[in-house]
């Protein structure tokens, strides 16, 4: 099975190529079905290929396809190990569901087939990223998903805001890649190759200092892709894309690439505790920061966007506190419930004729029961209500962090606070959208979405309910599954594990309490009488205003980086380049010209004048020669 693992990549790639050239001819539903089925086929193949890992009988394998850049040890090679297989399964599985959903969601769009071309291309890129056997190929996938993100965010390119958002996403990601590339430079120089073989024994080439540098630089890359402070600003804007895109790329898969990167490089982070702690700290700060912003958002997708940023922060806490399994676990469960939330939001937006403002919703539960139920499940899951998926994974991350002691306990505290806030804003969203009285604009008649959309919702809801049981303190399935991938790390220092015994119960209880408190407060506030809500909101008007505007970070970046940058570029281009440098060039030419103009009158045009000069010259030469001859 492993020998043909490239099929997982090739199927969506073939789909992208095929749809690019023939998609339009295939017409509306067919193109979507082709794309969805190809991704599903990849999923099925991945499941079959992963069977040995389930059985715990297989070892990680590499399949070399062809040589790419031999001088830097880069080739097209696939690594098939539990970590990459887990990522592959989630990407193809959740991806396939979202593809199916999109058939319904994108119904009637003039560029229907093009949308699925990009989606398949994205699947290819994401799978390249997770299946890569060396950093160069990982970077290939890394950038390819960036490209698809660009294409899909600005899918409705006639909207200037969409085009700008796509560009912003790509450029901010590039800034992260800058750090990533430097990390790769260090690795290549120290090891002579970019193969993942370096991770078998990073001590061969790296000192602690270099490992810290590599770890921090990779964090820069990861922060770009996974929307962490300070590079998270692109993700909320990315909501300009169609909702399935937000679900697939900006919630379930691409944005978790940073988490995957840290997990993949666990061996290096083990060498550099400072870098690992920084990862966790950045994660914690981002989690809290974004969660507070999410409280005040009015746009249904904006809430989810900031929530994604916040949840990614959780994953960073996990992998940063060396609880890699917990991080990956949360990645997986988050893929389920966040994809579900986005798809549900998409279903709502669809039903509300593209209305995204939650102030104009309310009371939708009656009209779209499936959407409301599934989204309710997801809301509870993200709020950390047992026994849904979010509870298990979040609990594991917090438990592991707490268990590390020291600084990590502070991060645990932040995480706990964030958990409460998360429960609050998610409940707020649910209440504003589905409960209460309708506040719709005139002429809107909400309706339940078609089957292609609701079936994926139900499937994801099932995963959200059941996914958590893959790795409970009682039955650590995922941990054993991933073990081969983290063997070396485990052997060297040992990963963080959740606390055990009574501590574990207490921690879990506290976390659940925080979540329930958040739910209770939000419910009381938003489902309760309007006057009370107004009064409370009035009292907190100032922070809410701050949160609503996302702390004005975009404006801050604009004023401190973009504007001065453009001003300096303008100065360089028009004053310095055209004025100074070209001025020197033209100045030299001007001097020559002026000299020419000065001596120009010597050329009188009269032959006889020239003759006299010639004669004078001859006489001069004559005198010179004669005097040299001793006259």
């Amino acid at each position, binding site marked *: 099975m492993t020998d043909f693992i490239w099929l997982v990549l090739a199927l969506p790639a073939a789909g992208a190529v095929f749809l690019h050239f023939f998609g339009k001819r295939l017409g509306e539903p067919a193109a979507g079905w082709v794309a969805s089925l190809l991704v599903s086929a990849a999923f099925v193949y991945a499941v079959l290929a992963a069977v040995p890992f389930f059985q715990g009988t297989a070892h990680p394998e590499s399949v070399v396809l062809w040589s790419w850049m031999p001088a830097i040890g880069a080739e097209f090679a696939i690594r098939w190990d539990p970590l990459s297989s887990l990522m592959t399964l989630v990407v193809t599985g959740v991806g396939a569901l979202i593809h199916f959903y999109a058939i319904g969601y994108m119904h009637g769009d003039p560029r229907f087939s093009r949308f699925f071309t990009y989606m398949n291309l994205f699947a290819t890129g994401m799978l390249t990223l997770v299946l890569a056997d060396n950093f160069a190929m990982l970077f290939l996938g890394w950038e390819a998903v960036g490209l698809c993100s660009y294409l899909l965010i600005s899918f409705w390119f006639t909207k200037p805001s969409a085009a700008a958002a796509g560009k912003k996403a790509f450029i901010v990601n590039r800034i992260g890649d800058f750090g990533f590339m430097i990390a790769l430079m260090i690795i290549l120089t120290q090891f002579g190759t970019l193969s993942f073989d370096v991770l078998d024994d990073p001590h061969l080439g790296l000192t602690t200092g270099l490992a810290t540098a590599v770890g921090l630089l990779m964090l820069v890359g990861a922060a770009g892709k996974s929307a962490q402070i300070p590079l998270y600003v692109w993700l909320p804007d990315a909501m300009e894309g169609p909702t399935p895109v937000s679900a697939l790329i900006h919630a379930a898969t691409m944005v978790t690439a940073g988490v995957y990167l840290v997990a993949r490089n666990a061996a290096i982070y083990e060498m550099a505790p400072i870098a690992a702690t920084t990862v966790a700290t950045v994660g914690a700060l981002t989690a809290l920061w974004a969660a507070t912003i999410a409280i005040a958002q009015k746009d249904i997708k904006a809430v989810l966007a900031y929530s994604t940023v916040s949840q990614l922060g959780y994953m960073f806490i996990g992998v940063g506190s060396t609880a890699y399994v917990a991080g990956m676990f949360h990645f997986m469960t988050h893929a389920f419930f966040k994809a579900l939330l986005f798809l549900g939001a998409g279903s709502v937006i669809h039903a509300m004729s593209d209305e995204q403002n939650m102030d104009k919703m309310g009371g939708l539960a009656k009209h779209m029961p499936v959407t409301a139920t599934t989204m309710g499940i997801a809301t509870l899951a993200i709020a950390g209500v047992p026994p849904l998926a979010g509870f298990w994974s979040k609990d594991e991350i917090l438990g592991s962090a707490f268990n590390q002691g020291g600084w990590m306990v502070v991060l645990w505290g932040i995480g706990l606070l964030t958990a409460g806030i998360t429960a609050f804003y998610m409940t707020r969203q649910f209440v504003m959208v589905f409960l209460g009285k309708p506040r719709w604009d005139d002429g809107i008649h909400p309706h339940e979405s078609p089957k292609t959309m609701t079936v994926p919702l139900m499937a994801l809801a099932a995963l959200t309910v059941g996914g958590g049981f893959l790795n409970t303190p009682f039955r650590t399935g995922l941990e054993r599954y991933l073990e081969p991938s983290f063997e070396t790390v485990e052997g060297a220092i040992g990963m963080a594990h959740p606390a055990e015994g009574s501590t574990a119960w207490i921690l879990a209880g506290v976390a659940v309490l925080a979540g329930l408190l958040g739910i209770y407060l939000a419910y009381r506030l938003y489902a309760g009488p309007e006057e009370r809500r107004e009064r409370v909101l009035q009292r907190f008007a100032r922070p809410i205003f701050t949160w609503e505007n996302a702390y004005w970070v975009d404006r801050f970046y604009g004023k401190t980086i973009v504007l001065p940058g453009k001003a300096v570029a303008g100065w360089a281009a028009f004053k310095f380049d055209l004025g100074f440098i070209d001025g020197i060039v033209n100045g030299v030419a001007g001097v020559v010209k002026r000299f020419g103009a000065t001596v120009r009158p010597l050329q009188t045009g*009269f032959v006889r*004048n020239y003759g*006299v000069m010639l*004669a004078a010259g001859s*006489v001069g030469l*004559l005198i010179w020669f*004669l005097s040299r001859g001793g*006259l």
Partner: protein
Amino acid sequence: MVELVLFVILGAVAIFGALSVVFAKNPVYGAMGLMMTLFSLAVFYVMHLAHLVAAVQIIVYAGAVMTLFLFVIMLIGVDRDEDTSEKLPMQRQLVAGLGLVVVLIAGVAVVGGRFDWVRPATSTIEVNGTVQEAGLALFTDWILPFEATSLLLIIAAAGAIALAYYGPRRRDREDA
């Protein structure tokens, strides 16, 4: 003694002719002066036993070339005095000055006596430029340059014809 007398007389004639080229107001007089110089030189050539050269001098120069000159003078109708006043500033003074300087240098050199005009003759062979002698040399050692001159003359003739044929007038005609 005969040679001295001839030299003085013919030299004076040659210089007179040359000066008339420079100063004659009427080009025809100038041409006549030049002809005088050419004749004197021809005689000098004979005195140097350069028979062929002397003959060619008379036939080609005095005969063909000067005729051509006179022809052109007639053609462009300059059988009248021309305006010889100088328009270019300092032109005459400069020329006179330069001439003087050269003469002065020559004088200094001669008077100073530190300058040999010619290296003492290394040979006492009497060169006799008869037609046979010259012809023999021309068609043996100098055959290549000689043939090259034929090419030169043909090209010159062709050029002259072309100039006459495609001259300005012809172009005017074509335009009209």
